[in-house]
């Protein structure tokens, strides 16, 4: 165990898995010589060589498709998007090829590939570079979508994603790369996909949060504890497949739920979770499910406007108070 940043934890995961399996290779913009736009891939070129750590041209559709083709022929690519905003260019290959290949080939061609990179808001990078796209990818059967919130989760889940035999969309949060936490150095340390983590136990209300919103939700829970409201914070970690069971069990216990996300609310992951809760735990709800989402506008540049667009501790606290009927 060592205290490392999420950036380092991801780096460890890639390094360990590439050392473990020669069929794993890494490609993306600036992953090699530049050492990674966000330094996640630092040192990998030197250690693993240019055959396996490959700088690509800025050609997202092309190298995403190339990765899928390589996976069809037996390799296990890790494709880095410098940010997930650029994955929009590659969605044809992710959705039409990676997500569907196994199915439309009648089970013959699975696609063991990881598309990873930072997603969500960063620091004043404006509309085109601040998008949380998990609901896009989670929409499609055939894809798995993972969003870690701690260095340990980042490492354990990325290792599982690389070992997984299906296409995995692994969305890191740019603002969280420097977050520190204890991380196992056991090369066999993995965290299974599809298993939610209870980040904090509580009994009065459940806060479901992912990625950037997990530390925010935990701070909200701390504030609420002082008021005598005990919050359970659940991080699904994998958006698809979603561990709805853990969420529903928590809701059955607390009877109230707030879902926090930095993404837009409309057709979002929180909307899906809310719907699942309604279908599975309707008779346990003491209040309507409450969402706290990013503001439904493109991300502005100005600092004050950007701040206002991303959910804060106070909003989660207010939402919990609302579902718990606290004046």
């Amino acid at each position, binding site marked *: 165990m060592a205290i490392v940043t999420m950036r380092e934890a991801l780096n460890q995961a890639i390094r360990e898995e590439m050392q473990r399996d020669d069929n794993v*290779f890494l490609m993306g913009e600036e992953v090699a010589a530049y050492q990674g736009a966000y330094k996640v891939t630092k040192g990998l070129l030197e250690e693993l060589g240019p*055959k396996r750590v490959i700088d*690509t*041209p800025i*050609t997202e*559709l*092309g*190298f*995403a*498709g*190339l*990765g*899928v*083709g*390589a*996976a*069809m*022929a*037996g*390799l296990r*690519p890790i494709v880095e998007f410098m940010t997930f905003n650029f994955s929009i260019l590659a969605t*044809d*290959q992710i959705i*039409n*090829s990676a997500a569907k*290949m*196994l*199915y*439309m*080939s*009648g*089970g*013959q*061609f*699975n696609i*063991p590939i990881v598309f990873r990179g930072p997603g969500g808001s960063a620091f004043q990078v404006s509309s085109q570079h601040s998008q949380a796209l998990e609901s896009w990818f989670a929409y499609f*059967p*055939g894809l*798995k979508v993972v969003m870690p919130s701690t260095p340990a989760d980042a490492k354990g889940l990325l290792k599982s994603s690389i070992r*997984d*035999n*299906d296409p995995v969309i692994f969305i890191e949060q740019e603002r969280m790369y420097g977050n520190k936490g204890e991380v196992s150095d056991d090369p066999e340390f993995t965290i299974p*996909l*599809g298993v939610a983590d209870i980040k904090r136990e509580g009994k009065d209300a459940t806060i479901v949060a992912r990625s950037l919103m997990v530390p925010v939700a935990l701070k909200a829970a701390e504030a609420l504890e002082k008021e005598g409201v005990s919050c359970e914070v659940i991080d699904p970690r*994998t958006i698809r*497949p979603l*561990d*709805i*069971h853990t969420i529903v069990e928590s809701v059955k216990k607390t009877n109230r739920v707030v879902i926090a996300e930095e993404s837009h609310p409309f057709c979002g992951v929180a909307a899906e979770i809310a719907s699942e809760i309604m279908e599975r735990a309707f008779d346990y709800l003491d209040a309507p499910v409450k969402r706290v989402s990013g503001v439904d506008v493109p991300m502005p540049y100005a600092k004050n406007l950007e701040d206002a667009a991303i959910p804060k501790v106070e909003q989660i606290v207010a939402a919990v108070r609302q579902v718990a009927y606290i004046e």
Partner: protein
Amino acid sequence: MAANQSQARRLRTMAKSNQDVRKRAPESSRVGAEDTSATGVLDHDAAEEADPRLDPTQAVKAAQKRRFAELDRATLIDIYRQMLLVRRFEEKSAEAYSAGKIGGFCHLYIGQEAVAIGAISAIRKDDYVLTSYREHAHAIAKGISPQAVMAELYGKAGGCSHGKGGSMHMFDKEVNFLGGHGIVGGQIPLATGVAFATKYKETDQVTLCFFGEAAVNQGAFHESMNMAQLWKLPCVYICENNQYGMGTSLERAMSLQDISQKACAYEIASEFVDGMDVLAVREATLRAVERARKNYLPTLLEVRTYRFMGHSMSDPGNYRTRAEIERHQERDPLKLFSASLKEEGIISEAEMKKIDDEVRAKVEEAVRFAEGSPLPEPEELFTNVYADPIPENE
């Protein structure tokens, strides 16, 4: 390396010299010129002004006959049999589609047989093929049985994709046929990736990637060309230029219509090939395959062909005239090749009849198999979504 570059340059020069003949201002639509046009927009007659690079039928036959010397009889007969099989298979598919046995889209290959058969006859069994949605011929040529292809068209469990892919998504891992792909140009980056993998694994396998000329306008084509040459990937890109992207002629869709010239931008070796001459396609492919196998180098082949049927079975065909189709049918690749074979005495009339009977029987057998094959089990709806499914914890 130097040799490769000079070769590319030479090919580029050749393409350039051809450029002047392509300089013809696109004609505006000939409204009312043909009473067969329902839309009022009629594309330029693709054969009105014959491409000088395309030999007249007599010249094609002469060239084929010269090549006979380098090929054994069995190979020639096999190529002929394959072309005929694909022709008969597609005719049967049209029949089955009309009878409602085949659903969805059904893109027929009639007229283009020389491309798939000629090219795939040039590769090894362990080489890879990826193609577009007009793929029945490629699937059969690569070694999927006509039964499995027909059953797939029928949406039956015995289909090569177990009824889950259909006309556009044939797959067979056993014969390294990596699919028909339904998004125009979508298979080009995939094939590039397959070639990347074979190089990564240091095998000498080659990947053939087929696509129509309309795919050349997609970013996926250009991104792939760039990476393939940049990383020296053993992929042969075969553009089947049948001169229409669905109902839109090349002229109405592409600023520079000499597709082989597109390779210049990426310093990729390229060739223009007469796609009605099966042996010309085979030879050009052999050259490209050797380049790929020996030197991990990609090639772009522009293979000029023509489809005799509509884009799909639901194509009203109002963008071209009957006369245009008939002119192209004079250069029917099957007719040209069978004439050459007969005229050279390689196959007798009787043998030809026998082959035709065999082929018809094979197609009938494919239909019988498809008819008799069971529908996929209802639970197949939920299988193959994930290789590592995570059971839902209720």
